[in-house]
């Protein structure tokens, strides 16, 4: 049964230095508030998993939280590079960060396999790509029925997954709606999970727009829930607020330079308090 905690307490309790952490949300519902809390609490040595690192990981990498990043597309969507990720990978600032990269298909399948309790995912993938030559986690198996060569990757099983969602109810059940990405998979695949939500409602099944096949994660499959209003901003929450494409564009300027980045971090993270 999910425990209701402040975001501070949830991060303090479940994100340990050195942990493997998946913060998911495919463009939509990216858990920015939680990422900022991780930075604020000075977590270090994290292995960060995420299909599309996005600027939340850029911020965490620039702030020195990450030891390793496992991803499949690391850019500022529609804008350009993640300058803090590049600075870490290319120049080792603030310290060297190791990367392990996959394709989206492989990572999506690896999350699915993690949720499914399997050690591996099998896909028709990486054909002719040179990614297997730089990622020793990509192997190939032979189908025992057809002889076809198929790719295999280890499933994703994070120590803790953090996702953002629209609503939880008082029993801790969580509704994810719209672009649902791999959020459910991330929660189910992880040993512990934190879900931040826009709001708490009484009972999800009694809501006017309840749908029998909605993506609802039961409270007993979640470790902790924390309310974080606007917790996905500058990403967005379908039904709540739109994506700040403007901020995504502005980030390019902020992150391009170490000093402006550090100043941004001071102003907007370290000295900004945060929700409790």
């Amino acid at each position, binding site marked *: 049964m999910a425990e209701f905690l402040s975001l501070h307490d949830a991060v303090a309790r479940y994100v340990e230095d050195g942990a493997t952490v998946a913060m998911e949300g*495919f*463009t*939509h519902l990216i858990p920015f508030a939680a990422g900022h809390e991780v930075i604020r609490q000075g977590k270090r040595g994290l292995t960060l998993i995420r*299909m*599309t690192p996005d600027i939340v990981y850029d911020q965490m990498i620039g702030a020195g939280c990450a030891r390793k990043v496992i*991803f*499949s*597309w*690391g*850019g500022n*969507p*529609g*804008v350009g*590079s*993640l300058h803090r*990720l*590049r600075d870490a*990978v*290319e120049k080792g600032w603030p310290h060297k960060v190791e990367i392990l*990269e*996959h*394709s*989206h*298909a*492989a990572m*999506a*399948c690896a*999350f*699915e396999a993690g949720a499914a309790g399997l050690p591996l995912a099998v*896909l*028709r*993938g*990486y*054909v*002719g*790509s*040179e*990614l297997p030559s*730089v990622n020793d986690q990509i192997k190939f198996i032979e189908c025992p029925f*057809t002889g*076809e060569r198929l790719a295999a990757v280890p499933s994703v099983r994070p120590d803790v997954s953090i996702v953002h969602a629209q609503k939880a109810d008082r029993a801790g059940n969580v509704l994810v709606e*719209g*672009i*649902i*990405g*791999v959020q*459910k*998979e991330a929660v189910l695949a992880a040993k512990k999970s934190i879900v931040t939500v826009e709001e708490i409602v009484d009972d999800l099944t009694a809501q006017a727009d309840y749908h029998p096949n909605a*993506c609802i994660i039961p409270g007993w499959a979640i470790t902790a829930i924390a309310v974080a209003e606007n917790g996905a901003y500058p990403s*967005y929450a*379908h039904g709540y607020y*739109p*994506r*700040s*494409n*403007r901020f*995504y*564009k502005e980030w390019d300027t902020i992150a391009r330079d170490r000093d402006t980045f550090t100043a941004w971090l001071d102003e907007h993270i370290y000295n900004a308090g945060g929700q409790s």
Partner: protein
Amino acid sequence: MSLEYTSAEMMTVTAARALENGMTCFVGIGLPSEAANLARLTHAPDVVLIYESGTLQTKPDVLPLSIGDGELCESALTTVSVPEMFRYWLQGGKVDVGFLGTAQIDRYCNLNTTLIGDYQSPKVRLPGGGGAPEIATNAGEVFITLKHSKRTFVKDVDFVTTLGFGRDGKGRDGVPNIGQGPTRVITDLCVMKPDPETKELVVVSLHPNVSREDVIEATGWEIRFADTLETTPEPNARELDVLRELKARTERKHSGE
């Protein structure tokens, strides 16, 4: 009467025209998305656009900045999880054409979006593979669109993120359950297609007012030209109107956000 248009508009309109009505198209962000939506808003109203964020059959009113803008979900027939998107819809063989951009492309249509330089100490680190490696092999065929330059059109890519036809042109030979791969590359200068035998890219059509020399200068290898070289048809007034309105709407929306 000739219309005024930019080479970027020429590229987008030509790319859009490659899509036929009723095709299912797995759309990459950026130029492919612009072209695919232009096709939908002009000659191909029933083209089915699929984005890797899980949005099936989407009809955005403005171009998405990211692959998962709210607009995509709000205008979709339905939105599925990302694992389902890659498993059932792409790998399951439901995609006729994958429409991709790239940072580097070589003469055998291999795509590099991983890095420039050496993998262990890259000169420039690029975003990585994303959906492309499996789009390129699991879609029925692949269209590629990007601006033409010596920097992007190289003899051999620094890294094969995504298979075109392999480093020797034979990368798809004998591979079961694989799509036919890139069938055309559309740039701001010309249209290229792989040679049916060798799979090396051949210019089949030059855009109006573009010379062979322009293409040769912008290509990092000795580019071949088809025996009968066509001139790409110009954009028409409606295409240009729709494209410009689309881009203006998009600009207003994104800067307002």
